[in-house]
């Protein structure tokens, strides 16, 4: 049984006040623009179909009904309030998208229009576009990024190319991880406590150190004061002549020692030159005696006289002997020599006698001279000859004698000096408050003073070393007692503690500064801010990043899922069309419309049509033949859904864009359909189409309805 619209009854539909018509097998509803043609198509769609498919329906306030035959025994009435629509009478095949009857039974203009340049595109896609809602699937997929379409979700993770939203998500995930790590570190590392604690510790140590520093300065001052006091005392001792005493004491000792040795020497010299004064007196006396005529008998004269005489006599004897016995001449020589010797002996004998005679005249003088001679010989153990003997000895002793004299004077000088020094020393002893006492006791006293001096010097040196070790500039000496004692070890220990605490504080601060820098970098803030602000911004950044990440994850996951659903739907649509093409349901409309082809099949992307003898690629057929095939496919699917029955076919100026030659063929084709039970309702504003209907439908069950002009 075929499905047929028997009657349309509507009031106040756009420009149409009323439209009430019983329809025939072939119906042409003709009207110019704005006469309500499209309103009427929409009214039919709205009343008959639950879902008008790709058609956009304007709201209408019209009231009216449509009566349809072929669904039930009686006419079925479709109005605004009908709960059942045409779809409710058919069953879906269960595969892929639900079939849309409105799309199958209502053909809009240009849907059958295949231009020559689209020839190559006539394939499975064209069939799908005509028979199923491929556009919807495309539209949905277009909303999903290509990267997401190729991505998959497995084991809680999204896998795909690192591009587009996936890349953005990965970046956000990385940022989120960095934020979490940073927040974790803030939580783990950030605390005001340690910094505060260390600062407190440092302050405490610093206070102690300052106290010790004061103590040190005070200690330096104390040492300095002691040193000054000692030095002052020392200076007083020096002023009192301590150094002089110590020096003089040594000098005195030296002088005494020298004195001793000089005295010893003097004794020796005096001993050696003891006869010098005698000699001096003896020479003077002897000289006086000599001056008084006291002759000192010179035995030499005697001896010379004797020798001369002896020699003369001997020589004369020898001469006489020679002259006599040998040679007179030779004896002559001896005679001469003997004569001369006799003369010599006589002269000296004369001189001796005269001397002897003179000595006999000054006897007292001679006695004295004798006494001198005897004394001399007794003293010196030498033979006294004359004054020369005295003088010789005198000269010998003279140097010693004068040395002794000089030494004696020297000793006297030294002695005076010693006395002088000793007197001075006594005075110094007195000034130093020491009883000088006996000279013999000076040694121990001076020794004590010396020790005292050494001790004082050592004390000063020690104190100065202590002071130097404090390393405090004199300008920093502090006279005020700090209330603590300077302890070097403690100060060192505190300094070590301070350094340690400062290092720890620096480390803490560096950690915090590093954290702060990282936070500022993460939240995009350049200037320094307080921690509360930074932490809040970090949290906000984390929340925003998480939100962006979740939002993107949502979008990606939704995209992946929807894409999967769409792909499956697309696949099922392909299967459905492929299955559908294999069924016999295609045969009748295909043969009826083309008058030739019996079967259509899908080979890859190509649609192959077969007649009794051969097979042809749809894309190689003429435009008219392709239009026939696609219309046949549409009707075949609709018939299939309706249980192999024919139905009505609404053509909303479907041939409007076809050229005049093709229009004729199209009109003829749909009239063939009418012959095979299909109800044709063609809406047109085109006079040529109307003429073609009038021409070819004449004699058939044909009704032409002209819409009233507005």
């Amino acid at each position: 049984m075929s499905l047929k619209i028997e009657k349309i009854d509507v009031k106040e539909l756009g420009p149409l006040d009323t439209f009430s018509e019983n329809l025939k097998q072939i119906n042409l509803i003709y009207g110019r623009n704005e006469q309500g043609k499209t309103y009427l198509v929409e009214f039919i769609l709205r009343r008959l179909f639950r879902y008008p498919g790709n058609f956009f329906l304007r709201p209408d306030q019209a009231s009216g009904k449509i009566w349809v035959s072929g669904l039930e025994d009686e006419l079925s009435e479709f109005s605004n309030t009908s709960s059942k629509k045409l779809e409710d009478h058919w069953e879906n095949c269960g595969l892929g998208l639900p079939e849309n009857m409105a799309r199958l039974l209502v053909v809009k203009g240009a849907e059958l229009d295949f231009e020559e340049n689209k020839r190559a595109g006539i394939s499975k896609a064209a069939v799908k576009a005509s028979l199923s809602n491929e556009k919807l699937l495309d539209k949905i997929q277009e909303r999903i990024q290509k990267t997401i379409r190729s991505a998959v979700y497995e084991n809680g993770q999204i896998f795909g190319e690192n591009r587009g939203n996936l890349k953005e998500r990965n970046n956000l995930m990385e940022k989120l991880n960095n934020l979490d790590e940073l927040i974790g570190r803030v939580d783990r590392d950030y605390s005001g406590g340690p910094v505060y604690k260390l600062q407190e510790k440092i302050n405490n140590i610093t206070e102690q150190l300052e106290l010790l520093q004061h103590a040190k300065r005070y200690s330096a001052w104390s040492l300095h004061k002691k040193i000054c006091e000692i030095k002052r005392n020392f200076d007083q001792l020096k002023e009192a002549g301590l150094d002089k005493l110590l020096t003089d004491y040594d000098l005195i000792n030296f002088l005494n020692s020298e004195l001793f040795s000089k005295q010893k020497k003097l004794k020796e010299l005096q001993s050696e030159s003891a006869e010098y004064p005698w000699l001096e007196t003896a020479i003077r006396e002897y000289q006086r005696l000599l001056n008084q005529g006291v002759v000192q008998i010179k035995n030499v004269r005697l001896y010379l006289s004797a020798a001369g005489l002896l020699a003369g006599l001997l020589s004369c004897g020898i001469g006489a002997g020679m002259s006599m016995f040998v040679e007179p001449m030779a004896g002559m020589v001896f005679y001469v020599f003997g004569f001369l010797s006799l003369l010599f002996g006589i002269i000296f004998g004369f001189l001796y006698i005269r001397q002897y005679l003179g000595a006999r005249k000054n006897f007292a003088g001679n006695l004295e001279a004798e006494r001198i001679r005897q004394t001399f010989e007794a003293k010196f153990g030498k033979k006294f000859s004359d004054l020369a003997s005295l003088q010789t000895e005198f000269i010998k002793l003279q140097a010693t004698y004068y040395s002794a004299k000089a030494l004696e004077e020297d000793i006297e000088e030294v002695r005076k000096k010693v006395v002088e020094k000793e007197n001075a020393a006594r005075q110094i002893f007195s000034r130093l408050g020491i009883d000088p006492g006996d000279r013999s006791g000076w040694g121990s006293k001076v020794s004590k003073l010396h020790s005292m001096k050494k001790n004082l010097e050592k004390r000063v040196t020690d104190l100065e070393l202590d002071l130097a070790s404090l390393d405090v500039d004199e300008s920093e000496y502090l006279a005020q007692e700090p209330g603590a004692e300077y302890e070097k070890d403690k100060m060192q220990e505190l300094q070590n503690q301070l350094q340690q605490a400062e290092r720890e504080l620096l480390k803490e601060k560096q950690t915090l500064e590093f954290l702060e820098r990282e936070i500022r970098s993460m939240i995009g803030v350049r200037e320094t801010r307080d921690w509360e602000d930074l932490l809040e911004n970090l949290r906000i950044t984390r929340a925003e990043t998480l939100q962006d990440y979740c939002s993107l994850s949502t979008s990606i996951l939704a995209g992946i899922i929807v894409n999967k659903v769409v792909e499956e739907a697309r696949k099922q649509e392909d299967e459905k069309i492929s299955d559908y093409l294999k069924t016999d349901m295609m045969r009748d409309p295909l043969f009826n419309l083309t008058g030739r082809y019996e079967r259509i099949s899908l080979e890859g992307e190509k649609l192959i049509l077969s007649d009794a003898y051969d097979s042809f690629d749809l894309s190689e057929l003429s435009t008219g033949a392709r239009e026939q095939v696609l219309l046949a496919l549409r009707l075949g699917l609709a018939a299939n859904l309706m249980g192999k029955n024919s139905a009505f076919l609404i053509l909303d100026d479907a041939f409007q864009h076809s050229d005049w030659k093709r229009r004729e063929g199209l009109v003829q084709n749909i009239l063939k359909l009418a012959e095979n039970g299909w109800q044709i309702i063609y809406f047109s504003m085109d006079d040529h189409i109307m003429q073609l209907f009038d021409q070819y439908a004449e004699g058939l069950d044909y009704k032409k309805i002209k819409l009233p002009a507005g």
Partner: protein
Amino acid sequence: MKIALTADLHLTDREKHPGRFKSLENILDQCLQMEVSRLIIAGDLFDAKQTNFSDFENIVKQEKYSGLEIHLIPGNHDHELSAEKISAENVRIYSKAEWLNLEDDWPLLLVPFQKGKIMGEVLQDIMGQSPPEKWILIGHGDWYHSQNRSNIYEPGVYMPLTKKDVNLFGPKFVFLGHIHKQLMGPQVYYPGSPCALDISETGYRHFLIFDTHFSSVEARRIETDLIYFDEELLVFPLENEEELLLEQIKQIRDSWKVEKSDEHKVCARIKVTGYSSDRSGLRKIIKEGFSGISFYEDVDISEVSFSYDPEKNYLLKKTLLELDILDLRDKPDMPLKNHILSEALRLIFEE
């Protein structure tokens, strides 16, 4: 010994916000019932700039509460609160960090909010060199470890307490006021606001009972006139749209865990998004689903679009099936299924 803890009442004038005073009275009454003699209010008892404390004093000065010690820690909203402003004898205000020594029990360190200070500094200051071995910190500020605390009433970070602080100073328990959301440990607890200040503070409100003997913390429900909820529904234009919507509403109501006798106190803000085949009938269905409760404002369906498209519905059904088997691994950084569904709806239905 049991100690009651609360915070963030944000009292103003009774006439202006009676519910907040009622919550306080309920806490005090429950303390009396349980024979708890100490209540510590960890900051923000009063709202900012509140200068009239008479309504509060009228409550605490009542004879029945005379045996109850109330220890007040000023928070960031009432940090200027000082002892001379409250005359009630049973109220003690801590303007600076102070120890509260309980007989034979762990000492409590009560730390008021101090502007510009971080908790660690204050702790170091008060702890000195020899902190007690066991002690409890009660203060007002942010527990930085917990990031989930956004509240429009309390923007910013105040007196942050970090895990390092806790590890460093070693309190056995920390009770903080400031964020209005409840946090039940471990170690750090927030009682949450005892009276919802706005629709964002949802569900039953609680105060805490800390039992020092058993080292246990119990959240006690506060009787309030209103229980807020803020919910979002997602509607899809399937044939069983109404059924699905009602099921969703049932799940939401179940999640509230509100006792039947309290349902009349529920005030919910409902926002609906998605696509409906019967947009005009939505409100009716939702109101039926939420029968017995009041609405904060009219059900918001402004983001619901109309759609009836069997082909899109087919894709939606398939999407729902896919979502059912989607394993999101319960990861906090993964989106909720409802959000994915919402986005999927947009992809499928957006015109």
